[in-house]
Protein backbone atom coordinates (compact mmCIF):
# COMPACT_ATOMS: atom_id res chain seq x y z
CA UNK A 1 0.00 0.00 0.00
CA UNK A 2 1.29 3.41 -0.91
CA UNK A 3 0.86 6.03 1.79
CA UNK A 4 1.80 9.09 -0.25
CA UNK A 5 2.02 9.20 -4.01
CA UNK A 6 3.03 12.60 -5.33
CA UNK A 7 3.45 12.89 -9.08
CA UNK A 8 4.93 15.95 -10.79
CA UNK A 9 3.86 18.15 -7.91
CA UNK A 10 4.36 21.89 -8.28
CA UNK A 11 3.58 24.22 -5.41
CA UNK A 12 3.35 28.00 -5.72
CA UNK A 13 3.20 30.07 -2.54
CA UNK A 14 2.92 33.84 -2.56
CA UNK A 15 3.69 33.92 -6.29
CA UNK A 16 6.90 31.91 -5.90
CA UNK A 17 7.38 28.38 -7.17
CA UNK A 18 8.59 26.52 -4.11
CA UNK A 19 8.30 22.97 -5.47
CA UNK A 20 8.91 22.18 -9.12
CA UNK A 21 7.84 18.87 -10.66
CA UNK A 22 8.44 16.81 -7.53
CA UNK A 23 7.60 13.13 -7.63
CA UNK A 24 7.97 10.88 -4.62
CA UNK A 25 6.17 8.02 -3.02
CA UNK A 26 6.18 6.66 0.51
CA UNK A 27 5.18 3.05 1.04
CA UNK A 28 3.61 1.54 4.09
CA UNK A 29 6.16 0.82 6.79
CA UNK A 30 8.88 2.99 5.25
CA UNK A 31 11.06 5.34 7.27
CA UNK A 32 11.95 8.24 4.99
CA UNK A 33 14.05 11.30 5.73
CA UNK A 34 13.75 14.45 3.65
CA UNK A 35 17.08 16.21 3.62
CA UNK A 36 18.41 19.35 2.01
CA UNK A 37 19.70 22.83 2.62
CA UNK A 38 17.62 25.67 4.06
CA UNK A 39 15.10 26.89 1.52
CA UNK A 40 15.32 23.73 -0.59
CA UNK A 41 11.60 23.06 -0.13
CA UNK A 42 11.67 20.35 2.55
CA UNK A 43 8.98 21.88 4.75
CA UNK A 44 6.81 22.76 1.76
CA UNK A 45 7.09 19.17 0.57
CA UNK A 46 5.86 17.63 3.83
CA UNK A 47 3.13 20.25 4.21
CA UNK A 48 2.02 19.37 0.70
CA UNK A 49 1.99 15.65 1.50
CA UNK A 50 -0.37 16.20 4.44
CA UNK A 51 -2.66 18.40 2.37
CA UNK A 52 -1.77 21.81 3.83
CA UNK A 53 -0.47 23.26 0.55
CA UNK A 54 -2.53 23.12 -2.62
CA UNK A 55 -0.87 21.76 -5.76
CA UNK A 56 -0.55 24.18 -8.65
CA UNK A 57 0.15 21.19 -10.90
CA UNK A 58 0.52 17.45 -10.49
CA UNK A 59 -1.38 14.89 -8.44
CA UNK A 60 -1.23 13.66 -4.87
CA UNK A 61 -2.95 10.63 -3.49
CA UNK A 62 -3.01 9.62 0.15
CA UNK A 63 -3.59 5.94 0.93
CA UNK A 64 -4.60 5.48 -2.71
CA UNK A 65 -7.24 8.24 -2.68
CA UNK A 66 -6.80 11.60 -4.45
CA UNK A 67 -6.13 14.13 -1.72
CA UNK A 68 -9.24 16.20 -2.53
CA UNK A 69 -11.44 13.20 -1.81
CA UNK A 70 -9.42 11.79 1.09
CA UNK A 71 -11.41 11.83 4.33
CA UNK A 72 -9.64 9.36 6.58
CA UNK A 73 -7.33 11.97 8.11
CA UNK A 74 -6.93 10.32 11.54
CA UNK A 75 -4.69 7.77 9.79
CA UNK A 76 -2.14 10.60 9.55
CA UNK A 77 -0.22 12.23 12.34
CA UNK A 78 1.51 15.55 11.76
CA UNK A 79 4.10 17.30 13.89
CA UNK A 80 4.69 20.82 12.57
CA UNK A 81 7.87 22.77 13.03
CA UNK A 82 7.31 24.76 16.22
CA UNK A 83 9.63 26.40 18.65
CA UNK A 84 7.15 25.90 21.45
CA UNK A 85 3.63 24.69 22.07
CA UNK A 86 1.28 27.46 21.00
CA UNK A 87 -1.67 29.22 22.56
CA UNK A 88 -2.10 32.26 24.76
CA UNK A 89 -3.90 30.33 27.50
CA UNK A 90 -1.91 27.87 29.61
CA UNK A 91 -2.63 24.20 29.01
CA UNK A 92 -1.34 21.04 30.65
CA UNK A 93 0.75 18.41 28.91
CA UNK A 94 -2.20 16.03 29.24
CA UNK A 95 -4.65 18.49 27.67
CA UNK A 96 -2.40 19.16 24.68
CA UNK A 97 -1.68 15.47 24.07
CA UNK A 98 -5.36 14.56 24.47
CA UNK A 99 -6.23 17.10 21.77
CA UNK A 100 -4.46 14.74 19.37
CA UNK A 101 -7.43 12.38 19.78
CA UNK A 102 -9.97 15.00 18.68
CA UNK A 103 -9.98 13.93 15.04
CA UNK A 104 -10.99 10.43 16.12
CA UNK A 105 -13.81 11.54 18.41
CA UNK A 106 -17.44 11.74 17.62
CA UNK A 107 -19.28 14.70 19.14
CA UNK A 108 -21.70 12.44 20.93
CA UNK A 109 -19.13 10.01 22.22
CA UNK A 110 -17.33 10.96 25.39
CA UNK A 111 -13.59 10.59 25.88
CA UNK A 112 -13.41 6.86 26.57
CA UNK A 113 -11.03 4.49 28.29
CA UNK A 114 -9.45 3.66 24.92
CA UNK A 115 -8.82 7.37 24.32
CA UNK A 116 -7.25 7.77 27.73
CA UNK A 117 -5.07 4.69 27.16
CA UNK A 118 -3.85 6.08 23.83
CA UNK A 119 -2.92 9.36 25.52
CA UNK A 120 -1.07 7.51 28.28
CA UNK A 121 0.83 5.37 25.78
CA UNK A 122 1.80 8.40 23.76
CA UNK A 123 3.09 10.13 26.89
CA UNK A 124 5.08 7.03 27.90
CA UNK A 125 6.52 6.79 24.40
CA UNK A 126 8.05 10.23 24.72
CA UNK A 127 8.98 9.76 28.38
CA UNK A 128 6.68 12.46 29.76
CA UNK A 129 4.07 10.40 31.61
CA UNK A 130 5.15 11.95 34.91
CA UNK A 131 4.56 15.49 33.59
CA UNK A 132 0.94 14.99 32.50
CA UNK A 133 -0.51 17.59 34.88
CA UNK A 134 2.23 20.17 34.41
CA UNK A 135 1.71 23.27 32.31
CA UNK A 136 3.38 22.87 28.93
CA UNK A 137 5.00 26.27 29.28
CA UNK A 138 7.05 25.01 32.25
CA UNK A 139 8.79 22.38 30.08
CA UNK A 140 12.09 22.78 28.27
CA UNK A 141 12.15 23.26 24.49
CA UNK A 142 13.06 19.64 23.87
CA UNK A 143 10.32 18.42 26.18
CA UNK A 144 7.78 20.66 24.44
CA UNK A 145 8.82 19.12 21.13
CA UNK A 146 8.16 15.71 22.69
CA UNK A 147 4.70 16.91 23.76
CA UNK A 148 3.95 17.79 20.13
CA UNK A 149 5.07 14.33 19.04
CA UNK A 150 3.00 12.69 21.77
CA UNK A 151 -0.01 14.70 20.56
CA UNK A 152 0.44 13.19 17.10
CA UNK A 153 1.05 9.69 18.52
CA UNK A 154 -2.09 9.93 20.66
CA UNK A 155 -4.14 9.83 17.46
CA UNK A 156 -2.61 6.38 16.78
CA UNK A 157 -1.65 7.29 13.22
CA UNK A 158 -0.48 4.80 10.62
CA UNK A 159 1.90 7.37 9.23
CA UNK A 160 3.67 10.09 11.14
CA UNK A 161 4.96 13.19 9.34
CA UNK A 162 7.41 15.33 11.30
CA UNK A 163 8.95 18.66 10.33
CA UNK A 164 12.39 19.12 11.89
CA UNK A 165 11.61 17.24 15.10
CA UNK A 166 15.24 17.35 16.16
CA UNK A 167 15.91 21.06 15.63
CA UNK A 168 17.09 22.67 18.85
CA UNK A 169 16.35 19.53 20.87
CA UNK A 170 18.72 18.29 23.57
CA UNK A 171 20.46 14.90 23.26
CA UNK A 172 18.17 13.19 25.78
CA UNK A 173 15.07 14.27 23.93
CA UNK A 174 16.59 13.18 20.62
CA UNK A 175 17.19 9.70 22.03
CA UNK A 176 13.64 9.49 23.37
CA UNK A 177 12.31 10.69 20.05
CA UNK A 178 14.32 8.06 18.17
CA UNK A 179 12.93 5.41 20.52
CA UNK A 180 9.34 6.53 19.97
CA UNK A 181 9.71 6.65 16.18
CA UNK A 182 11.50 3.28 16.15
CA UNK A 183 8.62 1.84 18.14
CA UNK A 184 6.06 3.17 15.65
CA UNK A 185 8.13 1.91 12.74
CA UNK A 186 8.52 -1.57 14.29
CA UNK A 187 4.77 -1.80 14.59
CA UNK A 188 4.37 -1.29 10.86
CA UNK A 189 3.89 2.48 10.89
CA UNK A 190 5.43 4.77 8.31
CA UNK A 191 7.52 7.79 9.19
CA UNK A 192 8.38 10.78 7.02
CA UNK A 193 10.56 13.39 8.62
CA UNK A 194 12.39 16.52 7.65
CA UNK A 195 15.75 16.78 9.27
CA UNK A 196 18.81 18.92 9.23
CA UNK A 197 20.99 16.65 11.24
CA UNK A 198 19.96 13.08 11.88
CA UNK A 199 21.70 12.35 15.18
CA UNK A 200 20.30 9.23 16.84
CA UNK A 201 17.67 8.96 14.09
CA UNK A 202 20.29 8.00 11.54
CA UNK A 203 20.14 4.26 12.13
CA UNK A 204 16.34 4.26 11.65
CA UNK A 205 16.29 5.86 8.24
CA UNK A 206 15.77 3.53 5.30
CA UNK A 207 15.54 6.08 2.54
CA UNK A 208 16.59 9.66 2.06
CA UNK A 209 15.02 12.12 -0.34
CA UNK A 210 17.42 15.00 -0.85
CA UNK A 211 15.86 18.27 -1.95
CA UNK A 212 17.62 21.08 -3.76
CA UNK A 213 16.05 24.28 -5.10
CA UNK A 214 12.54 22.86 -4.97
CA UNK A 215 13.40 19.67 -6.82
CA UNK A 216 14.30 16.14 -5.79
CA UNK A 217 18.05 15.87 -6.15
CA UNK A 218 18.35 12.25 -5.12
CA UNK A 219 16.11 9.54 -3.73
CA UNK A 220 17.56 6.36 -2.34
CA UNK A 221 19.41 4.77 0.54
CA UNK A 222 20.57 7.36 3.04
CA UNK A 223 24.12 8.60 2.73
CA UNK A 224 26.25 6.46 5.04
CA UNK A 225 29.28 8.43 6.05
CA UNK A 226 31.82 5.87 7.13
CA UNK A 227 32.66 2.53 8.73
CA UNK A 228 30.66 -0.61 8.11
CA UNK A 229 27.66 1.51 7.11
CA UNK A 230 29.52 2.47 3.97
CA UNK A 231 29.93 -1.15 2.85
CA UNK A 232 27.64 -1.97 -0.10
CA UNK A 233 26.71 -5.37 1.37
CA UNK A 234 25.75 -3.88 4.71
CA UNK A 235 22.29 -5.04 5.71
CA UNK A 236 20.66 -2.42 7.84
CA UNK A 237 19.13 -3.79 11.01
CA UNK A 238 17.07 -1.90 13.48
CA UNK A 239 18.98 -1.79 16.72
CA UNK A 240 15.72 -1.78 18.61
CA UNK A 241 13.97 -4.96 17.53
CA UNK A 242 11.61 -6.40 20.08
CA UNK A 243 14.20 -7.63 22.49
CA UNK A 244 15.28 -6.51 25.94
CA UNK A 245 18.06 -4.41 24.47
CA UNK A 246 15.39 -2.12 23.04
CA UNK A 247 16.13 0.18 25.93
CA UNK A 248 19.06 1.42 23.86
CA UNK A 249 16.86 4.42 23.27
CA UNK A 250 15.76 4.80 26.84
CA UNK A 251 12.46 3.18 26.07
CA UNK A 252 11.25 0.19 28.03
CA UNK A 253 8.23 -1.12 26.28
Amino acid at each position, binding site marked *: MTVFDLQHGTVVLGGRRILEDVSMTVDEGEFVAILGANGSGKTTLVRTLVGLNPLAAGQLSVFGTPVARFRDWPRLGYVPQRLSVGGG*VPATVGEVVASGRTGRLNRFRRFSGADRAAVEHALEDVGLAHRVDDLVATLSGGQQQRVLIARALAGEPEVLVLDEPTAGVDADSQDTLAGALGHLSNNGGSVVLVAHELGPLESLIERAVVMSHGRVQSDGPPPRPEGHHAHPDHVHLHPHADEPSSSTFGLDR
Partner: protein
Amino acid sequence: MTTILAFDFMRRGLLAALLVGLAAPSIGTFLVQRRLSLTGDGIGHVAFTGVGLGVLLRTSPVLTAVVVSVIGAVVIEIVRERAQASGDVALALLFYGGLAGGSILIRLAGGTNAALGGYLFGSLSSVSDSDLLVIVTLSLVVICTIALFLRELFAVCQDLDVARVSGLPVRFLNLLVAVGAAVTVTVAMRTVGLLLVSALMVVPVATVQLLARSFRGTLYGACVLGAVMSVGGLVLSYYADVPPGGSIVMLSLAAFLVAAVARHFREANLGGA
Protein backbone atom coordinates in the same frame (compact mmCIF):
# COMPACT_ATOMS: atom_id res chain seq x y z
CA MET B 1 -29.35 44.53 47.97
CA THR B 2 -33.09 44.11 48.47
CA THR B 3 -33.68 47.72 47.45
CA ILE B 4 -31.90 47.02 44.17
CA LEU B 5 -34.09 44.04 43.46
CA ALA B 6 -37.19 46.15 44.01
CA PHE B 7 -36.68 47.74 40.60
CA ASP B 8 -37.79 45.87 37.49
CA PHE B 9 -35.00 47.37 35.40
CA MET B 10 -32.42 46.26 37.97
CA ARG B 11 -33.73 42.69 38.04
CA ARG B 12 -33.54 42.57 34.26
CA GLY B 13 -30.11 44.19 34.31
CA LEU B 14 -28.73 41.75 36.87
CA LEU B 15 -29.98 38.69 35.01
CA ALA B 16 -28.49 40.06 31.78
CA ALA B 17 -25.22 40.84 33.55
CA LEU B 18 -25.02 37.33 35.02
CA LEU B 19 -25.47 35.60 31.66
CA VAL B 20 -23.22 38.00 29.80
CA GLY B 21 -20.60 37.57 32.51
CA LEU B 22 -20.67 33.81 31.91
CA ALA B 23 -20.76 33.93 28.12
CA ALA B 24 -18.16 36.62 27.43
CA PRO B 25 -15.13 34.92 29.04
CA SER B 26 -16.12 31.53 27.60
CA ILE B 27 -15.69 32.83 24.06
CA GLY B 28 -12.89 35.13 25.23
CA THR B 29 -10.80 32.15 26.35
CA PHE B 30 -10.55 30.98 22.75
CA LEU B 31 -9.78 34.48 21.47
CA VAL B 32 -6.98 34.84 24.02
CA GLN B 33 -5.67 31.38 23.18
CA ARG B 34 -5.43 32.33 19.52
CA ARG B 35 -3.90 35.69 20.47
CA LEU B 36 -6.85 37.55 19.02
CA SER B 37 -7.69 39.48 22.18
CA LEU B 38 -8.62 42.61 20.27
CA THR B 39 -11.12 40.91 17.99
CA GLY B 40 -13.95 41.73 20.37
CA ASP B 41 -13.09 45.42 20.14
CA GLY B 42 -13.23 45.26 16.37
CA ILE B 43 -16.58 43.54 16.37
CA GLY B 44 -17.85 46.06 18.91
CA HIS B 45 -16.99 48.88 16.52
CA VAL B 46 -18.79 47.14 13.67
CA ALA B 47 -21.80 46.41 15.88
CA PHE B 48 -22.17 50.16 16.44
CA THR B 49 -23.29 50.53 12.83
CA GLY B 50 -25.86 47.82 13.51
CA VAL B 51 -27.16 49.80 16.49
CA GLY B 52 -27.42 52.92 14.33
CA LEU B 53 -29.32 50.97 11.73
CA GLY B 54 -31.75 49.70 14.34
CA VAL B 55 -32.34 53.17 15.74
CA LEU B 56 -32.86 54.55 12.23
CA LEU B 57 -35.26 51.77 11.24
CA ARG B 58 -37.10 51.99 14.57
CA THR B 59 -36.58 48.29 15.26
CA SER B 60 -34.72 46.62 18.13
CA PRO B 61 -31.11 47.87 18.01
CA VAL B 62 -29.97 44.65 19.68
CA LEU B 63 -31.32 42.56 16.81
CA THR B 64 -29.86 44.73 14.04
CA ALA B 65 -26.58 44.83 15.96
CA VAL B 66 -26.53 41.01 16.07
CA VAL B 67 -27.05 40.80 12.31
CA VAL B 68 -24.49 43.48 11.41
CA SER B 69 -21.83 42.25 13.83
CA VAL B 70 -22.20 38.64 12.71
CA ILE B 71 -21.70 39.78 9.12
CA GLY B 72 -18.74 41.88 10.30
CA ALA B 73 -17.22 38.96 12.20
CA VAL B 74 -17.50 36.68 9.20
CA VAL B 75 -15.87 39.32 6.97
CA ILE B 76 -13.08 39.76 9.54
CA GLU B 77 -12.52 36.00 9.62
CA ILE B 78 -12.41 35.77 5.83
CA VAL B 79 -10.00 38.70 5.60
CA ARG B 80 -7.78 37.07 8.18
CA GLU B 81 -7.83 33.76 6.36
CA ARG B 82 -7.13 35.23 2.92
CA ALA B 83 -4.68 38.03 3.54
CA GLN B 84 -1.78 37.63 5.89
CA ALA B 85 0.17 40.88 5.81
CA SER B 86 -2.48 43.31 4.57
CA GLY B 87 -5.16 41.83 6.84
CA ASP B 88 -4.17 44.10 9.70
CA VAL B 89 -4.93 47.29 7.78
CA ALA B 90 -8.09 45.88 6.23
CA LEU B 91 -9.41 45.10 9.71
CA ALA B 92 -8.51 48.57 10.98
CA LEU B 93 -10.48 50.11 8.10
CA LEU B 94 -13.47 47.94 8.93
CA PHE B 95 -13.37 49.00 12.60
CA TYR B 96 -13.22 52.73 11.84
CA GLY B 97 -16.00 52.36 9.28
CA GLY B 98 -18.17 50.61 11.85
CA LEU B 99 -17.76 53.30 14.48
CA ALA B 100 -18.17 56.18 12.03
CA GLY B 101 -21.22 54.57 10.43
CA GLY B 102 -22.89 54.08 13.79
CA SER B 103 -22.32 57.66 14.93
CA ILE B 104 -23.79 59.02 11.71
CA LEU B 105 -26.80 56.71 11.63
CA ILE B 106 -27.73 57.40 15.25
CA ARG B 107 -27.53 61.16 14.63
CA LEU B 108 -29.61 60.87 11.45
CA ALA B 109 -32.22 59.01 13.46
CA GLY B 110 -32.33 61.90 15.92
CA GLY B 111 -30.55 60.02 18.69
CA THR B 112 -29.10 61.98 21.59
CA ASN B 113 -25.62 61.99 23.02
CA ALA B 114 -27.00 60.21 26.07
CA ALA B 115 -28.40 57.39 23.94
CA LEU B 116 -25.05 57.15 22.19
CA GLY B 117 -23.23 56.92 25.51
CA GLY B 118 -25.59 54.17 26.63
CA TYR B 119 -24.60 51.98 23.70
CA LEU B 120 -20.90 52.70 24.02
CA PHE B 121 -20.48 52.37 27.79
CA GLY B 122 -23.56 50.47 28.92
CA SER B 123 -26.65 51.74 30.62
CA LEU B 124 -28.51 50.37 33.61
CA SER B 125 -32.02 51.32 32.66
CA SER B 126 -31.86 50.31 29.02
CA VAL B 127 -32.60 46.57 29.25
CA SER B 128 -36.20 46.16 28.12
CA ASP B 129 -38.23 42.96 28.41
CA SER B 130 -37.76 42.12 24.73
CA ASP B 131 -34.03 42.88 25.03
CA LEU B 132 -33.81 40.54 28.00
CA LEU B 133 -35.39 37.72 26.02
CA VAL B 134 -32.82 38.19 23.23
CA ILE B 135 -29.96 38.45 25.72
CA VAL B 136 -30.94 35.32 27.67
CA THR B 137 -31.51 33.25 24.53
CA LEU B 138 -28.31 34.28 22.79
CA SER B 139 -26.11 33.95 25.91
CA LEU B 140 -27.38 30.42 26.43
CA VAL B 141 -26.79 29.60 22.76
CA VAL B 142 -23.17 30.81 23.04
CA ILE B 143 -22.51 28.90 26.26
CA CYS B 144 -24.07 25.67 24.96
CA THR B 145 -22.25 25.90 21.63
CA ILE B 146 -18.93 26.23 23.38
CA ALA B 147 -19.70 23.31 25.69
CA LEU B 148 -20.66 21.19 22.68
CA PHE B 149 -17.58 22.03 20.60
CA LEU B 150 -15.09 22.36 23.46
CA ARG B 151 -12.63 19.69 22.27
CA GLU B 152 -12.65 20.79 18.65
CA LEU B 153 -12.28 24.45 19.56
CA PHE B 154 -9.36 23.66 21.85
CA ALA B 155 -7.61 21.63 19.13
CA VAL B 156 -8.14 24.34 16.50
CA CYS B 157 -7.03 27.19 18.75
CA GLN B 158 -4.03 25.18 19.92
CA ASP B 159 -2.66 24.42 16.45
CA LEU B 160 -4.46 25.29 13.23
CA ASP B 161 -2.29 23.16 10.95
CA VAL B 162 -2.48 20.06 13.10
CA ALA B 163 -6.24 20.46 13.43
CA ARG B 164 -6.52 20.72 9.66
CA VAL B 165 -4.42 17.60 9.10
CA SER B 166 -6.46 15.65 11.63
CA GLY B 167 -9.53 16.37 9.51
CA LEU B 168 -11.35 18.83 11.77
CA PRO B 169 -13.67 21.33 10.02
CA VAL B 170 -11.29 24.20 10.73
CA ARG B 171 -13.09 26.87 8.73
CA PHE B 172 -16.42 26.05 10.35
CA LEU B 173 -14.87 26.12 13.83
CA ASN B 174 -13.13 29.44 13.15
CA LEU B 175 -16.41 30.92 11.98
CA LEU B 176 -18.08 29.50 15.07
CA VAL B 177 -15.67 31.44 17.30
CA ALA B 178 -16.10 34.59 15.19
CA VAL B 179 -19.90 34.40 15.19
CA GLY B 180 -19.91 33.50 18.88
CA ALA B 181 -17.79 36.57 19.59
CA ALA B 182 -20.14 38.75 17.52
CA VAL B 183 -23.20 37.46 19.31
CA THR B 184 -21.54 37.94 22.69
CA VAL B 185 -20.59 41.51 21.83
CA THR B 186 -24.15 42.47 21.00
CA VAL B 187 -25.54 40.61 23.97
CA ALA B 188 -23.14 42.43 26.29
CA MET B 189 -23.75 45.79 24.66
CA ARG B 190 -26.58 46.82 27.01
CA THR B 191 -24.70 46.21 30.23
CA VAL B 192 -21.01 46.76 29.43
CA GLY B 193 -21.29 48.85 26.30
CA LEU B 194 -19.68 48.30 22.90
CA LEU B 195 -16.38 49.97 23.73
CA LEU B 196 -15.81 47.91 26.86
CA VAL B 197 -17.37 44.58 25.95
CA SER B 198 -14.05 43.17 24.86
CA ALA B 199 -12.65 43.75 28.35
CA LEU B 200 -15.24 41.38 29.79
CA MET B 201 -14.17 38.78 27.23
CA VAL B 202 -10.46 39.15 27.90
CA VAL B 203 -9.74 40.46 31.42
CA PRO B 204 -11.27 37.55 33.40
CA VAL B 205 -9.30 35.12 31.21
CA ALA B 206 -6.09 37.08 31.68
CA THR B 207 -6.75 37.16 35.44
CA VAL B 208 -7.53 33.49 35.94
CA GLN B 209 -4.71 32.24 33.74
CA LEU B 210 -2.24 33.91 36.10
CA LEU B 211 -3.18 31.34 38.73
CA ALA B 212 -4.77 28.45 36.82
CA ARG B 213 -3.07 25.10 36.32
CA SER B 214 -4.87 23.96 33.17
CA PHE B 215 -6.83 25.16 30.15
CA ARG B 216 -10.10 23.83 31.53
CA GLY B 217 -9.38 25.48 34.86
CA THR B 218 -8.81 28.78 33.07
CA LEU B 219 -12.02 28.47 31.06
CA TYR B 220 -14.27 27.59 33.98
CA GLY B 221 -12.57 30.00 36.38
CA ALA B 222 -12.86 32.86 33.88
CA CYS B 223 -16.59 32.22 33.45
CA VAL B 224 -17.17 32.30 37.20
CA LEU B 225 -15.02 35.40 37.63
CA GLY B 226 -16.71 37.07 34.66
CA ALA B 227 -20.15 36.47 36.17
CA VAL B 228 -19.07 37.79 39.58
CA MET B 229 -17.43 40.89 38.07
CA SER B 230 -20.37 41.55 35.78
CA VAL B 231 -23.01 41.34 38.53
CA GLY B 232 -20.77 43.05 41.09
CA GLY B 233 -19.95 45.87 38.69
CA LEU B 234 -23.61 46.43 37.93
CA VAL B 235 -24.48 46.70 41.63
CA LEU B 236 -21.54 49.07 42.08
CA SER B 237 -22.74 51.22 39.20
CA TYR B 238 -26.17 51.51 40.82
CA TYR B 239 -24.77 52.79 44.10
CA ALA B 240 -21.97 54.91 42.65
CA ASP B 241 -24.18 56.24 39.84
CA VAL B 242 -21.58 55.56 37.13
CA PRO B 243 -21.95 53.76 33.77
CA PRO B 244 -22.02 49.97 34.39
CA GLY B 245 -19.42 49.31 31.67
CA GLY B 246 -16.91 51.40 33.57
CA SER B 247 -17.55 49.84 36.98
CA ILE B 248 -17.57 46.25 35.61
CA VAL B 249 -14.27 46.75 33.81
CA MET B 250 -12.64 48.61 36.69
CA LEU B 251 -13.66 45.84 39.07
CA SER B 252 -12.23 43.26 36.65
CA LEU B 253 -8.96 45.16 36.38
CA ALA B 254 -8.76 45.33 40.17
CA ALA B 255 -9.19 41.55 40.30
CA PHE B 256 -6.42 41.23 37.73
CA LEU B 257 -4.09 43.27 39.93
CA VAL B 258 -4.90 41.12 42.96
CA ALA B 259 -4.21 37.96 40.93
CA ALA B 260 -0.93 39.38 39.63
CA VAL B 261 0.21 40.17 43.17
CA ALA B 262 -0.91 36.71 44.37
CA ARG B 263 1.07 35.07 41.60
CA HIS B 264 4.11 37.14 42.42
CA PHE B 265 4.02 35.97 46.03
CA ARG B 266 3.35 32.38 45.03
CA GLU B 267 6.39 32.37 42.77
CA ALA B 268 8.50 34.07 45.41
CA ASN B 269 7.46 31.32 47.86
CA LEU B 270 8.24 28.57 45.36
CA GLY B 271 11.58 30.18 44.65
CA GLY B 272 12.45 30.33 48.35
CA ALA B 273 11.36 26.76 49.05
